[in-house]
């Protein structure tokens, strides 16, 4: 096997970044979910919300931990695998990521300890503040990193002289043409991911006839969020599609699976293709007649642009982009159907008793992660061969590191990350099997900033005892 460093470096980056994004996607969604739950707890003072909070907090904290340690890798990987990219793009994306660290990472890290271990030390109100800070941190982090990634997709605000890049307008770098659409797309995806996770676990308990109260509350919340969010996501996705069609036509050409400059009229919507990149055609294709024209051109006989509109050496690989797009798109359609079904069942009053629907929800638990990963594959494989679109090709961006070193570290990453994901799944499933534990102490939502300044009062065993007694009486 021929060892081409640029391919191995890309596989390594793709693997580490794909693995990483699973965890921030969950963390962004779950952090906001936890903030909502804690707000409900503070408002209603019902112990069930604290029970939900504590249950999902333990899964959140594991996922967050993996997200942190796999994220550090990425901040060095720009230089490890793609030093020529780092040298060129550093002046533009470096400051964005630096601000991400300053405004988001530290915020999350600073308040995470209080969120995880500080409830009794600081009291519920300040604890809620800490949860909100962590949630805001995840959102700020998403904003900065999406800005950096969107700049690579649709670069703006820079001048290039002699291979060196200088920023001429930070506003244009930051608010580049695709950021405003890609950020809400990603945040909504993260929220959908958490909603389906929460609803799926609730559905599982209902099917097993366990933890009814907990299950009903989380399923009701999860499906409600999911329904609103998927409606929003379809809308955002449609706008983003138009934006990318304008800025990166080759990506969308590859995503739809047509080769000829203009497809036949009326165009089918393709579901399955066997692309032949060398001969610029599909060996086999299967689609629904008329649907392509209707969905993509909003007319009965419109034609769709094919990949031959892009010069051959600037084309992405069609297969990757097409199937990643289909997986994302089909997941969204199923999510939409589930959302509609949940509304109907809610209206009929059988949301908690329709077993077929509960099984679908269980099956849909990881759907958000699948869709998000697929979406990122569309974004990242579809902009190839460019790493900074139109400015720097991926093949010209790599480090002077020989292929064997890249291979061996890739193998190391795969082995280590396999341990991480296995442990994460085992422990998460164990937490789910064990179920939420009853909340004994501290079920009343009180406390104030004052407590934070004298935590020893809260520490004293007497205090905990009285809390327990008042709780029981």
């Amino acid at each position: 096997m021929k060892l081409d460093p640029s391919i191995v470096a890309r596989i390594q980056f793709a693997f580490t970044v794909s693995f990483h994004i699973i965890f921030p996607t969950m963390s962004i969604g779950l952090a906001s979910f936890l903030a909502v739950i804690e707000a409900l707890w503070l408002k209603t003072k019902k112990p069930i919300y604290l029970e939900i909070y504590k249950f999902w907090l333990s899964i959140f904290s594991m996922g967050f931990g993996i997200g942190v340690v796999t994220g550090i890798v990425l901040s060095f990987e720009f230089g490890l695998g793609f030093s020529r990219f780092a040298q060129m793009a550093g002046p533009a994306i470096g400051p964005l990521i630096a601000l991400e660290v300053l405004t988001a990472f530290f915020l999350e890290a600073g308040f995470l300890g209080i969120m995880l271990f500080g409830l009794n030390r600081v009291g519920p109100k300040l604890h809620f503040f800490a949860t909100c800070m962590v949630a805001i941190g995840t959102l700020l982090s998403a904003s900065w990193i999406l800005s950096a990634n969107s700049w690579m997709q649709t670069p703006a605000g820079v001048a290039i002289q002699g291979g060196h890049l200088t920023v001429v307008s930070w506003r244009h770098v930051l608010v580049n043409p695709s950021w405003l659409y890609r950020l809400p797309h990603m945040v909504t995806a993260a929220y959908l991911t958490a909603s389906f996770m929460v609803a799926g676990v609730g559905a599982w308990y209902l099917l097993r006839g366990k933890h009814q109260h907990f299950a009903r509350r989380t399923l009701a919340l999860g499906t409600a969020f999911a329904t609103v969010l998927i409606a929003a996501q379809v809308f955002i996705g449609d706008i983003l599609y138009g934006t990318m069609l304008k800025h990166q036509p080759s990506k969308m050409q590859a995503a739809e699976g047509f080769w000829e400059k203009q497809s036949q009229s009326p165009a089918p919507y393709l579901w399955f293709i066997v692309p032949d990149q060398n001969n610029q055609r599909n060996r086999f294709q299967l689609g629904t007649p008329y649907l392509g024209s209707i969905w993509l051109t909003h007319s009965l006989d419109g034609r769709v642009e094919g990949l031959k509109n892009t010069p051959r050496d600037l084309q992405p690989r069609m297969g990757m982009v097409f199937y990643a797009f289909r997986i994302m798109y089909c997941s969204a359609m199923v999510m939409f159907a589930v959302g509609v079904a949940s509304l109907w069942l809610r209206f009929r009053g059988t949301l908690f008793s329709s077993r077929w629907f509960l099984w679908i929800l269980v099956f849909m638990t990881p759907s958000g992660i699948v869709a998000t990963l697929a979406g990122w594959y569309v974004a990242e494989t579809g902009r190839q061969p460019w790493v900074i679109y139109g400015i720097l090709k991926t093949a010209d961006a790599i480090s002077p590191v020989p292929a064997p070193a890249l291979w061996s570290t890739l193998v190391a990453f795969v082995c280590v990350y396999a341990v991480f994901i296995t442990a994460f799944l085992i422990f998460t499933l164990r937490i789910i099997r064990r179920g939420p534990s009853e909340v004994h102490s501290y079920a009343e939502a009180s406390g104030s900033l004052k407590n934070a300044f004298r935590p020893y009062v809260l520490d004293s065993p007497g205090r905990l005892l009285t809390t327990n007694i008042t709780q029981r009486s």
Partner: protein
Amino acid sequence: MDLPLISVSFLAFALTLYVILDGFDLGIGILLLFQPAPMSRDHMIDSITPTWDGNETWIIMAGVTLLAAFPVAYSILLPAFYLPVILMLLGLGFRGVSFEFRVQSRQHRHRWDVAFAVGSLVAAFMQGLVLGSLMQGVKVQNQHFSGSLLDVVHPLPIITGLALPFGYAVLGGGWLKLKSGLRLQAFANRSIRVSAALFAILFALACLYAAKIQPGLRSKWTSHGIALACLAGLFAIASGLLTTLPKKTVPVVPFLLGLFLLLVGISGLALSTFPDIVPFSVTLWEAASSATSQTFVLVGAAFVTPIILTYSAFAYWIFRGKTPDKGWEDDN
């Protein structure tokens, strides 16, 4: 205004905070290897659990500041230190996930403790390896790394690689003395004394060896002779005090002495390489990005860093005092 100079100061600030803050976290991890009692291990890890994440973030801050302000240096140094940096990242990864996983796993907790300890040790060793490789100099041609990935496997980096874990263990021992109850005081004292002695010897050996093989370093040392002699004197005094630590001292003293020891070491190294950002090849001005990029980072840092320091201090303050015997979890 000399922007690259301000940027490099911020970079040094972030890196120093990383070394001393994650230093004691990694030190605790390394000391786990010498602590067989499961309850004591729980207690040691509990003492750093609520605040470790913020400490580790400073290395990302340093790395990303390098990318933003000195992209040339970033793109030379990371390929040059490809192997140690990746092994460090994997070590930090095992250390980080073990915080979460060891709590979940009662049956196999000792395995996650091993992962925690070995992860910390590997990360510390690799950081030491990078330090030694910086002292021996990095081969650069036309603003790209031109050496071999195996340049890090030389006597000098290996000596510094062995030294740094002991340096971190001094900090870890100091932290443990500060945070733990009576049970672990003797263990902490012993750790500090042994680690301080070995750290001082290995570090001195590394400096002598570096002076022998790197003419760039020798010339810097002769030009800053007096300042460096003072630092060396302070280093010797601090490590001497730590090595002969009496059993009954005020708990905070060894920790502060440990911080002082590391700070003196860092100042000495900074003085020996300044103004090179890739030692003996590229100066910080040659590696700097344009003024707009520097300004963007520095303005952001100027506004946000005080806020970060405030709430980080607040987090430390919330979890101040001795670590509870049953850990923070049962505290709830």
